[in-house]
């Protein structure tokens, strides 16, 4: 029976990947945009889930990592230098994301529990205020950096035009697949077991001689790295970088997406990201932008009150059984 299930799993993977490869052939540019958007936030949600669902830490400021990475792209390609090479932009932005992850993680090891959420929130506020003040004309204040245009991505003979929707779509899907595999491998590795151990019982890990502080900083850095990848992609997708990418509301939204989908699984947050992205674009054009805020706000309440563990495992999984 297990063999059959395994076959079924491979069949699903083949089916989904071929569907995604051939999607641009028959769908409009708006659908391509939406699917790219959902996958980008899927990467962000997986990065958040590694931090929240697996390690049991709570953050309200993950928008710092995504937003500052996007601003790094904006600064290097527009305001500070004029770098067009996407590979270089990726390296710089991921460096920024990882560094910020290390920094925030270092401060968060001095506190615990729900206070971690407040400290990450403070970092999101600091980044937002810095971006809004427009230091040295680098961030263009409230309007954000507009006109971010990545050059074509060249790997050997292959040349991918990232300014077209379809070219970027293939890049997003490819990076999503790689990120999924890497994060999946992390959760199955020994380090991943320690992350899960931090969630379940940090005291026991400490008494076994593990330095949980280092592992917490590590998970911050990993999460910051993958959030930064999402940040780069979102700046390529929208061709602009706005302060809304740094604001804490985005950090709260990714928490909502993760809880909605199912923390502690990798498929769940991606599903949640698709659900929120599609309803954001379709439902808000249907009922109006203002009413969508009511719906989103209501979703925060409903998910917590009635949908514990998310849509993936709403009964079996006790999310946040140990929030430390």
């Amino acid at each position: 029976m297990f063999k059959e299930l395994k076959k079924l799993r491979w069949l699903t993977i083949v089916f989904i990947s071929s569907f995604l490869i051939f999607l641009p052939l028959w769908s409009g540019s708006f659908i391509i945009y939406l699917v790219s958007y959902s996958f980008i936030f899927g990467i962000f949600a997986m990065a958040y889930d590694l931090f929240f669902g697996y390690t049991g830490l709570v953050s309200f400021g993950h928008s710092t990592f995504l937003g500052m990475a996007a601003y790094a792209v904006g600064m290097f390609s527009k305001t500070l230098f004029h770098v067009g090479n996407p590979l270089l932009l990726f390296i710089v932005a991921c460096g920024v994301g990882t560094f910020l992850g290390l920094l925030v993680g270092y401060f968060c090891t001095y506190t615990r529990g729900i206070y971690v959420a407040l400290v990450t929130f403070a970092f999101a506020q600091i980044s937002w205020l810095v971006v809004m003040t427009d230091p040295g004309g680098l961030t263009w204040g409230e309007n954000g950096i507009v006109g971010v245009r990545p050059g074509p991505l060249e790997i050997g003979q292959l040349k991918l035009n990232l300014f077209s929707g379809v070219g970027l779509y293939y890049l997003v899907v490819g990076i999503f697949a790689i990120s999924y595999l890497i994060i999946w491998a992390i959760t199955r590795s020994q380090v991943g077991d320690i992350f899960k151990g931090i969630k379940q019982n940090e005291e026991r890990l400490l008494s076994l001689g593990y330095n949980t502080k280092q592992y917490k900083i590590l998970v911050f850095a990993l999460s910051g790295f993958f959030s930064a990848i999402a940040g780069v992609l979102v700046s390529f997708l929208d061709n602009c970088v706005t302060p809304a990418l740094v604001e804490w509301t985005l950090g709260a939204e990714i928490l909502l997406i993760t809880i909605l989908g199912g923390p502690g699984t990798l498929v769940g947050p991606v599903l949640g990201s698709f659900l929120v992205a599609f309803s954001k674009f379709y439902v808000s054009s249907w009922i109006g932008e203002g009413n969508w805020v009511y719906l989103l706000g209501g979703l925060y309440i409903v998910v917590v009150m009635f949908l514990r563990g998310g849509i993936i495992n709403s009964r079996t999984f006790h999310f946040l059984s140990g929030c430390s």
Partner: protein
Amino acid sequence: MVSAGLIVTQLLNGLTIGLVYALIALGLTIVLGLMGVVNFAHGSFYMIGGYITYTLTASLFRNFWVGLLFGAVVCAVVGLGLFYSIIRPLRERPPLEPMVALVGVAMIFEQLTRSFWGADPKLLPIPFGRIELNFFGYTLKYPIYFLAVMIISILLLSFFYYLFRKTDLGVRCLASIQDRETAMSLGVDVDRVGRLMFIIGMAAAGAGGGLAGPIFSVYPTMGTELIGLIFVIVIIGGLGSIAGTVMASIAIAMITSLSLIFVSGNIAHIFAYVILLVMLLFRPRGIMGFERVLE
């Protein structure tokens, strides 16, 4: 060259605003200490208080003080509703869950004000005129209203002091913050204390919003903008400590308003967050917090 008059004015402004912050932060720190709930919707009550005061001042009563009183009462009633609908059903859950739900509540409140009153800031006229103050030979004109805000805030804060030092309710509340299990086993009805404290805290936040209305004017995002600063104050002051919270509020407000002489408002706020981070490294439990950190 910065004139001494400017510095004195900014210090007075800092003191006024700090006292208002203290009024708002007290409710948050007590709710956090007592029930372990990080009330993200706390800023919404500040906003509701401000808007109710604005509406009643502008149309119905044409009297600022009646509007202020009504703002606080409305906030208490809405707070009671919030307590029964969100906070009580989620009270046995891990602290993250009520926090997430309250983020939703804050978003809904913000959008409600936006659709009722519009997104533009509403100006409240500053009651009273200006007064000439004398400081060591310097004379400066200062709005009487700011001094009135100081006096009202000090009166309300001394009411809190009386509540916590002299009344049964306050003592039970402090006992529950220090050790919830022991207080419960000694017969303190933590639930009832929590409900009363929540309502009082929300009314104080509403009064703070009304008092700050003429100073900052009212606008839909005022609550979510303030809440970050209030979190900073609560962490620096120490969980559940009244004196610590008041000290932290005044210190933060004075530092930000003094730095306003040299830098823009956004950078002044960054200073507040940096103080939080430095505090975290050297004294994680805050100025006067209890040893026990919130689990």
